[in-house]
């Protein structure tokens, strides 16, 4: 995909600070997107119950009439394009593991702060384990 869009750029165009800024943008946008989407789905309620009451169309209507959902999807799209931008300047072996694993930790923090989820020791452990695991797997 990235090869198809290859824009001629000098190799090593980005310094360490620029690289950190690009990865931070991806992580922040994706965290905002995930938290807003989760908040939207929480505000809508259990989709299985809505589908049982008003069918699949009713469930789809409940989702696409929620403005918060579109805010979330907008941020997720922003995260996707900032990811493409970062991939244009940095190596996949740096961007993919760094953004994927950092997103898990920032999401746990954001879920505790904004969604008031009870992130107990069990969930912190899981987030950190999965974070290291994703880093090792994607590196």
């Amino acid at each position: 995909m990235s090869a198809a869009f290859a824009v001629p750029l000098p190799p090593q165009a980005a310094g360490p600070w620029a690289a950190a800024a690009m990865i931070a943008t991806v992580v922040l946008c994706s965290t905002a997107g995930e938290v807003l989407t989760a908040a939207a789905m929480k505000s809508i309620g259990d989709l299985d119950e809505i589908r049982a009451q008003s069918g699949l169309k009713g469930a789809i209507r409940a989702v696409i009439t929620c403005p918060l959902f579109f805010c979330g999807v907008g941020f997720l799209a922003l995260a996707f394009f900032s990811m493409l931008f970062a991939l244009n300047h940095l190596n996949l072996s740096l961007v993919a593991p760094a953004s994927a694993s950092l997103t898990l930790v920032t999401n746990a923090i954001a879920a505790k702060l904004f969604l008031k989820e009870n992130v107990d020791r069990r969930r912190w452990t899981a987030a950190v384990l999965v974070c290291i695991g994703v880093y090792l797997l994607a590196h």
Partner: protein
Amino acid sequence: MTGIPPVSIAHPLTLIGAVFTPWIALGIALLIAFFACYLTALSWADLTFVLPATAFGNVIVALLARFWLHEPISIERWAGIALITVGVGFVARGPAQTARPKSNEVASDELTTGVETAIVAPAEAPREEHVR
């Protein structure tokens, strides 16, 4: 995507044609299915429950690459697979939802105490056996 001739920035409309290529259409359909399932899960479970659980997809991809595409997997990656599996097992043992509406505050408190005892119990059990 690599089966399609390179798309130039000057002709972005060729991308619309690419959407109707069978493999890309199938990929998009599966991505939509993933997003629908993900949203349904988020409607009844916490974000901190769903996200680590979806990370298990990485493990499935790695195992498919190993046994279907016969790609070699380094020790580091096996360690990554093990860590993700343990992490997902950890989060799956807990409750799916902890953020409750205010009216159910008492129920939520009962829920968390129940969980704490559940965490303590397995740790104590082997100790008792050890004493015996």
